[in-house]
């Protein structure tokens, strides 16, 4: 992808269809995590979930009460912003079977969209960062060193995307 640049109140960038497709996929996976929280079926005792939904209090009782009252709203807020990024990507992607893999997609976001993207890019990056940093024993069986190396490249790509969006909005 190319660095984001300022566009009115928002920003614009260009990325390859395969990049947009990858990011949309990752975004949908993270949406699944948040939806599980809203539905009360999330496994919160997991390194990724512990990082995405940290304790708000040192005391276990206070932390549990905060979770009971606030976690669903936090998840809903994240679903709103992540769904925005995923929808922007899906809109920009050509229809199935109509792909020209070399043609860059143009993405333009307004100020509100840029905020949603900033948060979402950071969130996907955080999830992958925690996953790739985990002990091998905690990862899904069959995950190879090559898979991990690829995920780390994606973490760098996400860092570039978020960093240049921050710079474009400054």
């Amino acid at each position, binding site marked *: 992808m190319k660095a984001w640049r300022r566009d009115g109140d928002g920003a614009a960038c260009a990325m390859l269809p395969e990049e947009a497709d990858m990011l949309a996929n990752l975004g949908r996976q993270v949406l699944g995590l948040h939806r599980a929280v809203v539905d009360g079926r999330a496994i919160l005792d997991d390194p990724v979930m512990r*990082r*995405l939904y940290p304790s708000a209090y040192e005391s276990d009782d206070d932390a549990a009460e905060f979770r009971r009252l606030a976690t669903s709203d*936090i998840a809903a807020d994240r679903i709103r912003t992540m769904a925005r990024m995923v929808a922007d990507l899906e809109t920009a992607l050509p229809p199935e079977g109509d792909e020209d893999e070399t043609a860059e997609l143009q993405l333009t976001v307004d100020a509100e969209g840029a905020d949603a993207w900033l*948060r979402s890019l950071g969130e996907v990056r955080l999830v992958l960062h925690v996953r790739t940093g985990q002990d091998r024993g905690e990862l899904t069986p069959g995950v190879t060193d090559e898979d991990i190396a690829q995920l780390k490249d994606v973490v760098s790509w996400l860092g570039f995307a978020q960093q240049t969006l*921050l710079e474009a909005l*400054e």
Partner: protein
Amino acid sequence: MNATDAQVGAEAAAVEDAAPLAGDEWATVLWDDPVTLRPYVVRVLMRRFGHSAARADALTSQAELEGRAVVAHGAREEQEMHVAGLHADGLVATLERMPGGAQ
């Protein structure tokens, strides 16, 4: 810290031990996060708390260097909203009672 401060501190600690107290002061504490990009943290602090760029930058540095920084304080309910907002933004934040805040 001089002798008077130490005395006041000791008194505050004693008062705190005698909770519950009226006029609770709670702090929103931001924790260092080695993963999240620094300019993102600064931007969140500016937008969420209305801090100036310099203030947000200083608080982010404090969290980096000391592991944590108090980014806001006040009534408990308000601070809980702040912590929830920071969590939604992907940052690690907690609530705690301010030392001596009950006076």
